């Protein structure tokens, strides 16, 4: 089952914050976050393995609520370089390896 991402798209001014949510109908082993710029490959941002775990990468951080089967990606003080499509990938507990990607959230940061 593909995880559901929200919002589908968001437009920010440089310096603004954003939250991208990822929700699964299945119990999860882990959540991955990737960013893809137009015409390029997805780039790994972070993995969250434990419920409640929060990880950070520059001004981008994420949390994982295992009980709710949800993860959120936080972008603070956004920069132009943050523009792209953000994908969450979930690994259900009933599959030890199958990473299933959401449909993505398009983020545009404007000057």
């Amino acid at each position, binding site marked *: 089952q593909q995880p559901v991402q929200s919002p589908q798209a968001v437009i920010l001014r440089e310096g603004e914050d954003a939250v991208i949510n990822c929700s699964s109908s299945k119990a999860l082993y882990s959540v*991955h976050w990737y960013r893809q710029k137009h015409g390029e*490959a997805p780039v790994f941002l972070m993995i969250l393995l434990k419920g409640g775990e929060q990880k950070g990468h520059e001004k981008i951080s994420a949390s994982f609520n295992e009980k709710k089967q949800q993860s959120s990606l936080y972008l603070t003080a956004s920069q132009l370089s943050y523009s792209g499509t953000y994908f969450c990938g979930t690994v259900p507990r009933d599959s030890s390896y199958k990473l299933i*990607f959401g449909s993505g959230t398009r983020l545009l940061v404007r000057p």
Partner: protein
Amino acid sequence: DARVTQTPRHKVTEMGQEVTMRCQPILGHNTVFWYRQTMMQGLELLAYFRNRAPLDDSGMPKDRFSAEMPDATLATLKIQPSEPRDSAVYFCASGLVRDGQPYSNQPQHFGDGTRLSIL
């Protein structure tokens, strides 16, 4: 920086032709994944190899797609015969999984993809 290398970067061919896409994983990585990306379906896992052994190819149409890993430095994805609906960007990704650990706690490193157009 070590990178996953995919060739060709672009491929345009006619329906019915054989298409072969190649992937060189990052040296030392022991897992290889093939994905297909389209606007409609997003990123779909086609096949997964661990230590060169195919562990899952349930995402591939078996009648026309095949994936192999003849050695640790080369993975191939073939389509024969190709159809217009196969048009997509095909990504290869590699990762390093420790013995006894599931792959899912390791990041995947993607290549730049092969943009395939079947006319």
